[in-house]
């Protein structure tokens, strides 16, 4: 073996060791946290009535699983999120396209978009319930208000920052506006789309949970709200854990789509 190869082997080994160390530390942190939490609870150093404990969370999870309510709640939240995400994506791309196509319209609506975007949407919650009714509709509406506006703004900004030179080039071939859109604006904004899908899925979930906290009878947001009302902290923390897993999985699916799109 040449000295270069030996050096390279050493380099690879070092990288591997580093990777293992990171993974080990990550696992160690969660194990120490859970074990510590459980020990504190078992030894009555903390009040499990307020803090719950990993054991309680597991038994809550099992009992939710046995009463069959669990999957329904998860499904409802996921369903609402996907619905809101899909509608927001369609609205976002559609409106951004219109704004790109008609610069005058964009100029007119610009201040309104800015105001709506900067307004904390939770403030509209009570109004939405009164107007739309205490149903799934107001949850979707709430989620859309949060996710669609930001999607419109992100995609529109992406469209507007399309390289001017690309557009000039197409114009020099006497391209029509639609050709400029499909040949330069859309393909050069693949990253914009992926990034706004990522933001969109997170925002949709935030909106859905907010809506569920306000009105729902089902879903993880409802479980959290209900748990806190009856002071069942075990239920609240179990739901928060589940929410974390659901939100991670949905984000993960978007990154899978990203990998597929970027490969081309």
């Amino acid at each position: 073996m040449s000295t270069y190869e030996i050096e390279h082997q050493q380099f690879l080994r070092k990288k591997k060791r580093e990777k293992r160390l990171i993974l080990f530390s990550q696992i160690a942190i969660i194990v120490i946290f859970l074990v510590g939490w459980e020990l504190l609870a078992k030894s009555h150093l903390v009040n499990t009535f307020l803090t719950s404990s990993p054991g309680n969370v597991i038994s809550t999870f099992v009992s939710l699983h046995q009463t069959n309510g669990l999957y329904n709640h998860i499904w409802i939240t996921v369903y609402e999120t996907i619905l809101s995400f899909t509608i927001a994506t369609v609205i976002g791309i559609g409106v951004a396209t219109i704004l790109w196509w008609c610069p005058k319209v964009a100029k007119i609506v610009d201040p309104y978009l800015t105001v709506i975007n900067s307004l904390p949407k939770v403030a509209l919650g009570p109004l939405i319930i009164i107007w739309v009714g205490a149903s799934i509709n107001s949850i979707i509406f709430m989620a859309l208000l949060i996710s669609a506006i930001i999607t419109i703004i992100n995609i529109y900004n992406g469209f507007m920052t399309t390289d001017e030179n690309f557009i000039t080039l197409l114009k020099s071939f006497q391209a029509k506006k639609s050709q400029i859109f499909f040949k330069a604006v859309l393909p050069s904004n693949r990253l914009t789309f992926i990034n706004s899908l990522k933001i969109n899925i997170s925002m949709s979930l935030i909106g859905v949970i907010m809506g569920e906290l306000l009105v729902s009878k089902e879903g993880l947001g409802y479980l959290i709200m209900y748990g806190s009302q009856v002071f069942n902290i075990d239920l609240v923390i179990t739901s928060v854990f589940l929410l974390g897993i659901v939100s991670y999985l949905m984000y993960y699916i978007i990154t899978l789509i990203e990998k597929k799109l970027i490969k081309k």
Partner: protein
Amino acid sequence: MDTILKIDHLNKSYHDMKSVILAVEDVTLDIKEKEFISIVGPSGCGKSTILSILSNLEKKSGGNITFNKENCKLGYMLQKDSLFPWRTILENCLLGLEINQELTQENKERVVRLLETYGLKDFMDKYPDSLSGGMRQRVALIRTLAINPDILLLDEPFSALDYQTRLALSDDVYKIIKQEGKTAIMVTHDLAEAISLSDRIVVLTKRPAKVKKIYDIHLTDKSSPIHNRKCKEFSIYYDKIWRDLDVHL
């Protein structure tokens, strides 16, 4: 030789909120078929504006532009290559044909042949980021030639390149344009480049651009652009045009 394009008393002004910027004033110029004509002038005088008007990117404010040929097609090679990074070299070169809806098998084969002839065959299915600056500019030229234009407009096509690449590429581009039998109008601020490539040079005044002088370039032993730089008349033209440009710091 026949005149292919007549520019007659061309005017162009740009407007903004504060003022009117007169960019081109009363430019009259006949372009002959198959000639290589260069437009030189101080930077910001309105050279690019003239090309933009010819290729319909900007509207003229006054004057006439007449093509003495039916369906005279223009190909505009811009300063920046603007190759689309998500398209292969071949796909980039087909862009103009796609837009004009002329993407026939025959036309496609012609573009492939162009790429082959000019040394880009091996890169056809590669993406632009794997090409050097000079190569990219060559692809940009072929993308322009792909629509089979009658007149080529070149806006400082070599300005983004380092000196050696620029010399080599201007040689290449000259050969390609002559072999394909095209009329070329090139904008540049590089006098040496203009003299070594052109049959005629139009010198413009500073903004608003007016025609100051037109030179017919006659070089003894005229051959390739790099070689032309060694001709004995070269420096005489250079001095004359330099004085016309009247550069002050």
